């Protein structure tokens, strides 16, 4: 099942709707890396609220995704990891090190706004030295 990717101003939002196969996850990774360039996006949100299981493959693929997006010049935040999924991840030693996470979509947007605002010309109000 292909994950729908929405464009929301400077951001791309990928909202996982159901359990994904390994092939679906790789497809999502590559689609986001490509679309970040096509839409000149500043940030990517991957919403995993509906993901039933985050195993080693899913974890590794999301981490690769975040690092690829960073190399493309944008920020990634993973949102919506459920408490029981987080517990299973910790038991497996999957910490998503080096990847930003946030509670939900709202927090993810706030994180990206803060992370990317200086790139968007909002810094014009900051005092000069």
């Amino acid at each position, binding site marked *: 099942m292909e994950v729908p990717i929405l464009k929301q101003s400077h951001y791309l939002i990928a909202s996982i709707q159901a*359990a*994904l*196969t*390994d*092939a679906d996850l790789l497809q999502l990774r590559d689609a986001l890396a490509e679309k970040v360039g096509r839409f000149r996006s500043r940030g990517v949100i991957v919403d995993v609220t509906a993901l*039933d*299981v*985050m*195993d*080693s*493959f899913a*974890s*590794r693929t999301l*981490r690769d995704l975040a690092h690829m997006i960073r190399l493309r010049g944008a920020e990634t935040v993973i949102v919506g990891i*459920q*408490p*029981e*999924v987080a*517990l*299973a*991840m910790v*038991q*497996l*030693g*999957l*910490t*998503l*090190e080096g990847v930003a996470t946030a509670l939900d979509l709202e927090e993810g947007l706030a994180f990206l706004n803060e992370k990317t605002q200086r790139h968007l010309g909002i810094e014009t109000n900051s005092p000069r030295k």
Partner: protein
Amino acid sequence: MITAMNTETTVPINSDADIVVARQKSRELAVHLGFSPTDSTLIATAISELARNIVLYAKHGEIIVGAVQNASRYGIVVVARDKGPGIPNIEQAMQGGYSTSRSLGLGLPGVKRLMDQFDIVSSLGAGTTVTVRKWRDAERSYVLPTVS
């Protein structure tokens, strides 16, 4: 130990799509057996790892999920079986602690942590069988003294 056979399901594992089926079937059975949503997720995650090992290393195999019961408790038993190359060094495969996210290891220590019991039989050229069990929480409240 007596195994109740009436709730047994076999999932053939031949591709990455079957991994999803295996973890959904195991979650369904776990919920049916009265496991909490948290434990059901832990079980589904463990089965996802075992099914992935089959796809990656043996190409073909099967996952059998069933109910298990002994004198005082109920649980779930999952058998992951393949006729793949086998694991040359089980001791080594069971080491490595929390490194599954970095290495391309089998993730077996993680599976062991997610479940209550873990058994592995592997012979080179003949295949690998991993059997894991998890017992329902009810057993703990049965054993622990009540605090009032």
